[in-house]
């Protein structure tokens, strides 16, 4: 790490607090690591989380996301929300709605929570409950209504993939009926469980084109002054330039996992040879500004070709380090989504596989499968 790099470190504007890996659902595209079962009994305490919030706020963090797992599982969630609001954070709860009830929505409102994002797995009970691995659709509907009853701004999030993307029009319609302020059609990103299940989840090109058109048609039909906003991003596998992942490593985003590990994104824990620091041993400031892990891919000096001499490197930062590692074996390589990458054919191969008739079984995200994967890995 050089002095020059250090002086350029900006504040971590976004702090994502993964409060727990516990979750009543089993979504096969979960971004949690597949070996999450290793860390389920080492959760940070209320006091430890509040210290993390204080330290990150001092650095300039403004957005705080409560995530998981399912964050509502934490009985101290209201206490954490109150502390975060007192510190001046804009507080976001990212929940499946399962495990929530009307009185917790009310107590979260009293605690000062600013916004709730409720995820759905599909627009119909049958598909939703199959993907979630639990009967949950009706309860989600109830919770979305409770969120609006208590006048929270509400984002409804659908993770889209091969199994549900054909019903994007119904997802949009349902969201409108439920009074969503924002609709997020979040294409499954192929990390963690989603990478494991990629061949079953990657949509075909035809599906991608259909979904994009459905979004554009829906937007066009909204009344001129309708404040409803739809976010939809084409899966990066179907682009020929990589996404500016996290706006660059260690630029604005900091994740703290249930056991206190600090990461530049949800997925980085899998990268080898990086010793990710823990908030139990170090302050957030020391981690953000001085740790080798957060400095590893900051700036541009670490880049090999074709990124090093690429005129677009300041726009996309060479894409995603985790995707580069998973598909090429070296996290410093160009994200193979980029057509300039010598490994770009791996993306083409995955897309070609997606065109095959589906017969691939999915591994659902649950502690039993996580433990099985840990055993298989050792």
């Amino acid at each position: 790490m050089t002095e020059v790099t250090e002086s350029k470190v900006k504040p971590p504007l976004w702090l994502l607090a993964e409060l727990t890996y516990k979750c009543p659902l089993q979504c096969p595209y979960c971004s949690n690591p597949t070996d999450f079962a290793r860390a389920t009994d080492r959760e940070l305490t209320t006091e430890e989380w509040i210290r993390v919030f204080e330290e990150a706020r001092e650095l300039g963090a403004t957005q705080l996301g409560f995530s998981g797992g399912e964050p509502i599982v934490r009985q101290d969630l209201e206490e954490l929300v109150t502390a975060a609001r007192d510190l001046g954070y804009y507080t976001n709860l990212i929940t499946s709605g399962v495990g929530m009830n009307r009185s917790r929505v009310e107590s979260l409102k009293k605690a000062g929570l600013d916004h709730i994002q409720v995820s759905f797995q599909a627009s119909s009970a049958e598909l939703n409950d199959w993907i979630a691995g639990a009967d949950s659709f009706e309860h989600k509907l109830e919770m979305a209504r409770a969120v609006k009853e208590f006048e929270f701004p509400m984002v409804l999030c659908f993770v889209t993939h091969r199994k549900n993307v054909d019903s994007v029009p119904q997802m949009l319609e349902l969201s409108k009926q439920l009074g969503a302020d924002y609709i997020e059609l979040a294409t499954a990103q192929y990390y963690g469980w989603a990478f494991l299940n990629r061949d079953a989840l990657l949509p075909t090109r035809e599906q991608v084109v259909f979904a994009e058109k459905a979004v554009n048609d829906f937007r066009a039909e909204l009344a001129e002054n309708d404040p409803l906003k739809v976010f939809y991003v084409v899966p990066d596998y179907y682009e020929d330039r990589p996404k500016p992942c996290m706006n660059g490593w260690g630029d604005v985003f900091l994740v703290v996992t249930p056991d206190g590990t600090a990461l530049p994104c949800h997925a980085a824990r899998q990268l080898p040879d990086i010793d990710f620091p823990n908030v139990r041993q170090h302050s957030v400031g020391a981690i953000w500004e001085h740790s080798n892990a957060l400095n590893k891919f900051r700036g541009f000096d670490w880049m090999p070709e074709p990124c090093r001499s690429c005129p677009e490197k300041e726009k996309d930062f060479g894409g995603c380090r985790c995707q580069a590692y998973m598909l090429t074996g070296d996290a410093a390589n160009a994200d193979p989504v980029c057509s300039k990458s010598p490994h770009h054919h791996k993306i083409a191969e995955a897309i070609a596989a997606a065109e095959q008739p589906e017969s691939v079984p999915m591994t659902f995200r649950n502690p039993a499968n996580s433990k099985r994967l840990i055993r298989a890995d050792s």
Partner: protein
Amino acid sequence: MNTVIDKCQVCKIAPGVRLQFEKVQQAWVLLYPEGMVTLDEVASDILRALDGVRNTDEVVTEMRKQYGEAAELDEDVLEFLCSMIDQGWVRCND
């Protein structure tokens, strides 16, 4: 969207959106679900003048006190507020 507002309308920061001063950035920011925008001085002055009581014309008058009698001021303030409404960060009564 191309929102048009009238000078007698009252605008205010939309529900769920927060305007606050950030010490580290030494700037006013707007915070909304999962996002933030850092405001320059003029933008923050206009938004801070939206007290839910004063109408747009009175906000313009307030800005004139601070920024002088520039001819385009009315238009600039209205245009800025319309763009904020289009983003969903400001709401306006009918």
